[in-house]
């Protein structure tokens, strides 16, 4: 492998003053035709291309990205990874993903800094606690690590959290998934891009898809800002813009696109040990390796495609965090941003064939797609390669909106939709 990353290659390249590192991925011009095209160069799309090449030996693949790879929700989320979902279908999908996360740095030979510092979901009401027991119980029976913590145990893990029973919504307990954690989001996109590139996949940036062509009910390729590109298989993984792309193919997706905002504080010395999420007070927080507190909350309630939200949402979000951690009141918010999330009625994704032959959609991840990145790519690659869903994503097909077999994960999605 050219330029395999390791401490040895780092030393070797230091000797040559780092002049000889090769490109992590090429920036090729698009070819006229591919065996498969992935629309969307986020983590999910790049992972799909990677697993198409690696697991299914389909290497004549292009990933088309309208901007820069990882610039959508992959680079805008709060990087939380966990698999403590309530329903079997979701739990198995996210657990597959978590298992892939656990070896991802080695698999990609790119350190995605997956940090299994544990994820805590706080309960503030008796109903929260019933739901926590229910979810934890389901997780355990599904073979997923999960425990229920008392306020004292929570305090033991997070010494600065406010467990006063005089709080507006006192913390009554939490579910805890020790294997959950955070990862370096940009690195995930870059690692998959590099991995896919190594197999010959063309990662093409600044190439926006402007149309999806079909003939006799089969897809034939895509129109782009860099011309028509032919392919018998097109997989669309475009998050907040999925409904626009579906429209190109004459499809309607049961998706609403909402702004979702997040923010970081200035870098601080280590002060948080885990990831804390609270549905009841609407906020979640963790600390990055660089030291920033990474904070998020629920979606903005209006729909739209602009990557900015309302300030009032930020105010509510910060208030929630200061409720949980009164000591963070004097910490300063450095930066905020917004992404566009594609929300399905049941807060679960669509990873599916479509009525157009050769056209596949992977969307509807809502607020929680990052954690699924490797698993999503893995099952989507399978679905594209074999033209049939894998067992893990069979339940996540478009048809469920006709049959009603929804997988209601609003509770486990961690934030209110």
């Amino acid at each position, binding site marked *: 492998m050219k330029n395999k990353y*390791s401490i040895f*290659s*780092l030393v070797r390249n*230091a000797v040559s*003053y*780092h002049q000889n*590192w*090769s490109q*992590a991925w090429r920036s090729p011009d698009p070819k006229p035709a591919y065996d498969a095209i992935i629309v969307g160069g986020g983590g999910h799309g790049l992972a799909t291309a990677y697993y198409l090449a690696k697991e299914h030996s389909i290497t004549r693949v292009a990933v088309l990205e309208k901007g*820069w790879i990882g*610039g959508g929700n992959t680079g805008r989320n709060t990087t939380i990874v966990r698999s403590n979902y309530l329903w*079997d279908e979701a739990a198995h999908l996210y657990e597959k993903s978590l298992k892939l996360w656990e070896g991802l740095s080695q698999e990609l030979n790119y*350190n995605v*800094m997956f*940090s299994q510092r544990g994820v805590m979901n706080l309960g*503030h*009401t*008796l109903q929260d606690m*019933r739901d926590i*027991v229910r979810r934890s*119980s*389901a997780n355990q*029976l599904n073979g997923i690590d999960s*425990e229920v913590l008392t306020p004292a145990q929570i305090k033991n893990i997070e*010494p*600065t959290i406010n467990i006063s029973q*005089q*709080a507006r919504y006192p913390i009554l307990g939490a579910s805890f998934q020790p294997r959950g954690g955070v990862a370096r989001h*940009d690195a995930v996109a*870059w690692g998959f891009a590099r991995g896919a590139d190594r197999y010959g996949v063309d990662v093409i940036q600044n190439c926006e898809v402007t149309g999806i062509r079909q003939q006799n009910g089969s897809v034939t390729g895509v129109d782009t800002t860099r011309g028509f590109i032919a392919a018998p298989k097109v997989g669309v993984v475009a998050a907040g813009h999925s409904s626009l792309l579906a429209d190109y193919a004459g499809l309607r997706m049961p998706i609403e696109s909402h702004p979702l905002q997040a923010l970081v*504080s*200035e*870098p*601080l*010395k*280590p002060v948080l040990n885990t990831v804390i999420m609270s549905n009841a*007070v609407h906020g979640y927080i963790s600390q990055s*390796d*660089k030291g920033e507190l990474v904070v998020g909350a629920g979606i903005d309630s209006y729909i739209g495609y602009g990557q900015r939200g309302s*300030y009032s949402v930020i*105010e509510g979000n*910060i*208030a929630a965090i200061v*409720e949980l951690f*009164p*000591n963070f*009141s*004097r910490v*300063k*918010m*450095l*930066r*905020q*941003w917004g992404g566009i999330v594609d929300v399905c009625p049941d807060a679960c994704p669509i990873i599916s064939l479509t009525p157009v032959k050769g056209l596949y959609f992977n969307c509807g991840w809502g607020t929680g797609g990052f954690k699924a990145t490797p698993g999503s790519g893995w099952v989507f690659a399978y679905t594209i390669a074999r033209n049939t869903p894998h067992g893990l994503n069979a339940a996540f097909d478009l048809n469920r909106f*006709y*049959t*009603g*077999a*929804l997988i209601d994960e*609003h509770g486990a999605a961690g934030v209110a939709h």
Partner: protein
Amino acid sequence: MSSQRLPSGGRINRGRPLEFFFNGRRYEGFEGDTLASGLLANGIRLFGRSFKYHRPRGLFGSGSEEPNALVQLGEGASTIPNLKATQVELFDGLSARTVVGWPSLEIDLYAINNRIGRLLPAGFYYKTFMRPRFLWDWYEGRIRHAAGLGFAPTEPDSARYDKRNAHCDVLVVGAGPTGLMAALVAGRSGARVIVADEQAEMGGDLLSSTQHVSGACPWMFLDNLVKELSLMDNVMLLPRSTVSGYYDYNFLVINQRRTDHQAGIGDIVSRERNWRVRARQVVLATGAIERGLVFADNDRPGIMLSSAVRTYINRYAVRPGRTGAVFTNNDSAYQTAVEMHGAGMEVKGVIDVRQRPSQERLLQMDTLGIPVYSGHGVGGTRSGRQGLRAVELCRLSADGRDVLTQKGSLDCQVLAISGGWNPAIHLHCQSGGRPKYDDDQACFVPDKSVQSERSAGSALGIFQLGNCLSDGVDAGVHAVRETGYACAHIDIPYASDRTGSAIEPMWNVPDGVLPGRGGKKFVDYQNDTTAADIALAAREGYRSIEHVKRYTALGFGTDQGKTGNINGLAILAQHLGQSIPATGTTTFRPNYTPVTFGAIAGRELGTVFFDPVRKTPMHDWHVAHGAVFEDVGQWKRPWYYPKGGETMESAVRRECLATRKSIGLLDASTLGKIEVRGRDSAEFLNRIYTNAWSKLEINRCRYGLMLGEDGMVMDDGVSSRLGDNHYYMTTTTGGAAHVLGWLERWHQTEWPELEVFFTSVTDRWAVASIAGPNSRSLLDRLCSDIDLSAGAFPFMSLREGSVAGISARLFRISFSGELAFEINVSADDGVALWELLMEAGGEYGITPYGTETMHVLRAEKGYVIVGQDTDGSVTPADLGMDWIVSKTKDFIGKRSLARSDMLRDSRKQLVGLVTEQPETVLPEGTQLVNEPSTDYPVPMTGHVTSSYYSSTLGHSIALALIKGGHTRMGASVYAPTLDGQCIKAIISSPVFYDPENKLHKT
């Protein structure tokens, strides 16, 4: 450490000396100093260490652009991390310490990183620490220990914060010469004006300037201007106030810092205030920020922005060193040479990368005896114990790309550098505007306005004082006209600006060594991002500026790259062989400078304001009688009323038995109550509820289920008909607001043709519910104007009358399975009613009960609680409530109910559960399996939704949702609990008590 304070001048109050501490050592400064100027006056040059290489760093700037001098202020609960020393106003007793440096600033063991720096290029952590896998946790711990800047407090903050909403005609951002002139025009014209400036004093660059305005010295001009503005009633001047964000519809947030600069003011006033401003017009007079030059070892303490040197000398009367030099690519820094000379510094020379500086400047330097090295660059620097000692001169090629010859060195303690000026276009870009590259001035300037804003002065790329003053007037006139005021006359002040020669961009000063070698050339000081890092990123294929930012951390610091970003992207452009505009900038995001969390949260914290607590009219009675409360939605509801040290278990048993045997009393005021009126009320309810409402008689009640569009149970409640076109709906306590919004949404967006109106009346009524076999007898004593007999007042009907003289509406509905009356009275009468009931009920042993007993009683009857026994995936049929779903009319969710999955036999259905051991109560939430197993994943068959010990029945009961449960009566299931037990239970009917439904109808 000699004093570097100049004998006179500066905007400091020499009559007010202040004592302060830095890293434990005591110093003296003056009122008007910043921590930075105070330390500089004491000869301090080492202010901190860099983030990655832990290199010694000094002051680089003099304001919010400062990347290096980060300090931690104070101790304990009131400590503040990551302040820029350049923005910290000195007060008596101030104590600060540096944030990077372990164990100390002077001896920093992490400085080893500088020695092994070659092993730590940009993104090195992506390439290593991967094997062995189990060591990653350890590596990460080391990374975390090394990273981070200041310390978060570990105790709660005692300070208060507040917010104000404000409207104005003109918001002027920045009170430099441009902004003040704009404010003057707008103020004189009568517009409502807010002027916000991040500094303690209004004036911006005038505070550091010696350039005369309209013949007067700048400070006299400034004083007159500020005085006039401060006397205008329609103008509000906000110092120490940073416009941190520019949002849609001309909504801007101003963060005002009110107390940090004053010692001892404590928590008397709010520490910070966030102004939430809607401005009709915004003038962005945000000025320009000087950028540095990228050359080898350009980070030694003593290498400062030229503008900062000027500021320290003129504004703070501090000489930053004994000897100095200037390194520039533009004219502005020549003035710094003049000021350094005037401050008694020995100026060793002006090093100008341009081959031909203007004759006027050369003459000026000649007069002062300052040599000018034109066509030269700084090829490297050398440091002594306290920072910069000398700079190495090199002669540059005509195109500035190569070093022709090394030309020796200049000994100097201070190097004032200027790489040109960047207009502060942050807010323009936040507003949605784009940056546009100005080739002549080598900077990005604002492109077209998207919102009602106009950039002015140096924020627009106008860098001469006279032009700024007149552009400020223009901007003021524009804003005044746009807001409809008649524009007042104003004389435009003049300033004699020098003409000069143009800037020559110099993004990466050559040092004559091979790529990757030689001294580090820092682009972003705070994150230690070097020119080589950017080159490496480009080489490795990270070609988007956004990738380079993320790969090298360029601009990610607390200074948000104010001095380095443009240099960085220009260097990237060079490596990619493309133009600067083609490379583009990264996105400018809020905040302009960091904003305290507390200020953003404001007062919306704690038990009072975070999410206002709702209390029923009888709340104080409950408190006085020892109730323990439960949060239900925003409400505090009595959970149970322990007596004399009772446990919850025994209190609930007592409350249940008292109700079943005689009378219990429940405060039911929290249920959502919505008045539905209008000609089409019945039709509307028909569409909202699954059952039909048209034929409900007046004064009759009916139970209704609401479904979402997906056919799933969303809310329930009893609604009653009060008149022909008048219904009274009740909802669940937690669902009230959602239901009201739901009704409005359907009415407004789908069925606007229906004439129907909704009014929330939840708080209008206090509701006392009496339940139990003796409830009619009790009510008979208190109620003389209503015939309470079963024949005259049947179950599911309502009557109006009075209870103990209090006007009341009585409902015969029951959530307990007992004979029950819900007595609704005006909220004001709630306590009186409650106390009368308690008094009159004394002989029946009337017992107040809380939500827990309510839950037990209803569970004994098999009544569900939406949100507890349902979860958004439960249909009416799943609950065994097909009887309430109309087969004939349409309603929300009906079509979804016809989908194939809704008809599946294996859906989870509501059933009862009885444990083998009567005393064993199943934990609520626990999943159920058909066969216990440890072979994961274990297939689940359902879960426990509600579970209690029933003292009435003498055994535990539970409700559960179980796959195909309706056809599995008598079958066994197992509950593997989280604490490792496995409890066997038998599926039963969910109705455990009075299955014949007789009692509540008696």
